[in-house]
């Protein structure tokens, strides 16, 4: 399996590839995963700020107010059906306080949620807020997201009903 790191403001879109995408060290940033499980089309973005600015037209995945329509468009080019897409997100923590800045993490989460609602994309799982960092990984082939924190075991984020079908069957056989 190819392991691919997604940096600040970067994104990735793929269809049934044997890859694991990871965003290491999410602080105030939000890691967003969109998936059409039927078509096995996925997208992941590392959102840094809530709102874009004039000089940032070429970085749609970096901002909460532009990332959702951009990823939906990219996914549709790979055959995803809009009505089948669901979302998972992690991050948006307040690790540091800045005297002259708002809580960027909370604002990132709020804007991404607003955009998902606006585009009719349901959120099936999230681990957001708090004061600690998170690492978010997405197993593209099996449709399983995991979240890691310092001092805690890795946690499966994706609800069992949403992992890809053959994986769910294996899980059920062990439960």
């Amino acid at each position, binding site marked *: 399996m190819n392991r691919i790191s997604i940096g*600040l403001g970067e994104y990735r879109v793929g269809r049934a590839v044997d890859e694991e995408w990871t965003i290491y060290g999410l602080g105030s940033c939000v890691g967003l995963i969109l998936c059409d499980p039927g078509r096995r089309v996925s997208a992941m973005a590392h959102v*840094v700020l809530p709102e874009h600015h004039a000089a940032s037209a070429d970085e749609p995945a970096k901002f909460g107010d532009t990332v959702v329509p951009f990823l939906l468009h990219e996914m549709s080019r790979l055959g995803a059906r809009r009505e089948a897409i669901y979302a998972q997100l992690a991050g948006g923590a307040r690790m540091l306080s800045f005297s002259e800045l708002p809580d960027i993490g909370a604002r990132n989460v709020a804007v991404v949620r607003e955009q998902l609602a606006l585009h009719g994309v349901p959120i099936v799982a999230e681990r957001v807020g708090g004061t600690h960092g998170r*690492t978010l990984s997405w197993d593209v082939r099996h449709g399983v997201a995991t979240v890691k924190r310092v001092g805690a075991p890795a946690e499966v984020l994706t609800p069992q009903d949403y992992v890809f079908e053959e994986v769910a069957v294996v899980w059920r056989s062990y439960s």
Partner: protein
Amino acid sequence: MAPICGGMTAVMNEALDHAAHVLSAFLGTRLRWTAGVRISSHRLAELPALCGPEDTPVAAAFFEVRGDLTGYLLLAIPEPAAQEMVEQLLGVIEGEADQQLIDSTLGELGNVVGSAFLNVLADRFGITVAPSPPQVTWDMVGALLATLAGALAIRARDEWPVVHTQLQASGADLPLYLIWIPGQPIEQQREVKR
């Protein structure tokens, strides 16, 4: 990443040397540079990996600096080393000190290093600096640096000067990272007093 040259490097070297000297006295051990002082211009996307793997757990003391000179100062120590260092300072055996005391000691450690560093800058530039109280956190170094990158990104600039170095206690594998991100371009800061 682009290098930044000029008289600023000498001032930063002096400030970091002073910080190392004061920290050595505080810890009762000898500290030395292992990576030298680097003053470089970084794209924000490069910041999270500045201290190595982004998911490395560290103990960190963070200061927001206001006054004539603005910026962010971060002291980060890999977690096992930080725990050991603080326990040595407190004179307790492993696992005995409560977390509040450990955090308070780490904040004091950050105060010692941060003040030593900033005092040299204030003297050389003839300015006042007003650091915030230390914010102490134990977490992934990449998450801390990415949070700083987010705070800088709000200002719609993609490149920032970063002063960073690494200290090491003699005979021990205990790296300490010290990072200073000026709130304004280094070239625009006041001329060094002669």
